[in-house]
């Protein structure tokens, strides 16, 4: 049976066919890699989610704190800038603006909220 298979002849491709197919395959792979890189780059990074969660947590703490001041907080791998100011000169309301930066000092996430001052 093995001998029978060997006896079957295979027609070779021409050099032109091989070259064209190689070009097509390279172009196809190139486009595929480009798309893949773009998709992974554009998708939400875990870092961004972590930064967002961290800001939510910081905001929650700020809402239950009586004395909020403008400060820089270092948490995990992030630097959080906390800006505190009265909202429209209202003594009861405070405008809290949180911005998270990564190690490359790139802005990763932002959160702003008006809270009621704790007595």
């Amino acid at each position, binding site marked *: 049976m093995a001998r029978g298979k060997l006896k079957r002849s295979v027609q070779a*491709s021409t050099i032109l066919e091989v070259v064209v197919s190689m070009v097509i395959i390279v172009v196809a792979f190139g486009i595929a890699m480009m798309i893949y890189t*773009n998709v992974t780059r*554009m*998708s939400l990074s875990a870092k961004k989610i972590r930064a967002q969660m961290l800001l939510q947590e910081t905001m929650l703490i700020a809402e239950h704190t009586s004395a909020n001041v403008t400060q820089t907080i270092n948490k995990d791998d992030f630097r959080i800038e906390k800006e505190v100011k009265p909202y429209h000169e209202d003594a009861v309301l405070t405008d809290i603006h949180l911005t998270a930066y990564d190690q490359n000092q790139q802005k990763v996430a932002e959160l*702003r*909220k008006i809270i009621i001052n704790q007595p």
Partner: protein
Amino acid sequence: MVKASALYIVIIIALVIAVICSSLIISAYFYRIQYQKKFRYDQLENNLNSGVNIILASSDTAYAKERTLSLFNGDADSVSLQRLTWGIYDVGIVKAFIQKDTLFKIFSIANAIDSSKWAALYLVDEDRPFSLSGKTTIRGDAYIPKAGVQQAYVDNKAYQGDKRLIIGTKHISDKKLPVLNDQRLKQLEQYQDQNVTNDHALTKTDSVTSSFLKPTRFVNFKKEAETIKNIKIKGNVVLLSDTTLTIDSTAVLNDILVFARTIIVKSGFHGSCQLFAADSVSIQRNCRFDYPSCAGILRFKPPPVKSQAKITIGNHTDFSGVIFTYEKMETPVKPLISVGQYATINGQVYSQGILELKDSTKVCGSVFTSRFLYKNTFTLFENYLINTTIDSKALSRHYLTSELLPVSKKNKKVLQWLEAN
């Protein structure tokens, strides 16, 4: 003979790659859209909460009409705020929107308790002592007459409660009760004077739900004595009547306001609403009023026929909220609040006149009254408490009061989330 067909094979491989790539692009596109949507909704939720805080911190009149504002003068931070008066409480309406996406929250607002003014008992000083008998418990701070508190022997029963008589700090009370908030009373008076057309639709349906986003639905029965039965009414609805309004046990009322001359609630009723009457509120036995409810007598004008304003709470009834009486002009016959046997009140009782607490009643919260009354078959005792419990510690620490009552703090909190999307 097998053909090499390198081109065909490559085209098929390229096709497969194209399919994989296109699915990758589509999934990334949907993921991105969903992420943007989530991000937008997170931002909306954040703006909405900021709006809620602005409403809670605002003065009463600042947002009486709907106001739209930009929170931080940015692109995606528009909110629309409104605050309505809703009986003894307020209702806040907050909408946050970015492009076509809108989130809204509707909630009732109440005041925190001022612990410096809060008391389990405030009994006006009428230059006579206050007596306790039977298994009576008073737990919490108490404002009592200068003559003090003493044990008494009534109905062949001696005092069997705690030796301290009042488990808490004792203060001396004034000759008059702390007054109700005048501004809130004026707002309640406006409801009574509403002159609106009759809404017959109420009698034709079995369920009425009105959103606070829409204008208030007034149903005026005028001089027809009406019975509300086999119907569920919820939300932004005000029932008005110039005469007697009967609420049957088959009716379910939630969050609504009822203004009438006389209100009768049939036994077995279950709901949460605010009832205001000029003459009397009669709640029969085995009813359950969930928090936040209210039963009040509002007498801004003297009645045409001299009659005693009265609130009756039937036996075994549970009432959570506020019970109060108010008469603008003092009359010789003082208003009466009568609480039946085994009835439980979770909240506050403010009686400008007389408060009758029958055997085995329990008030988890606070009692403000000018005078106590206890009746047995033969005798009538004034300023006696017999087999009664007044326990301010038993009240939930999350309990919020109305600014109408004198123990309220200025800062406001969310009482109940009514509607949201």
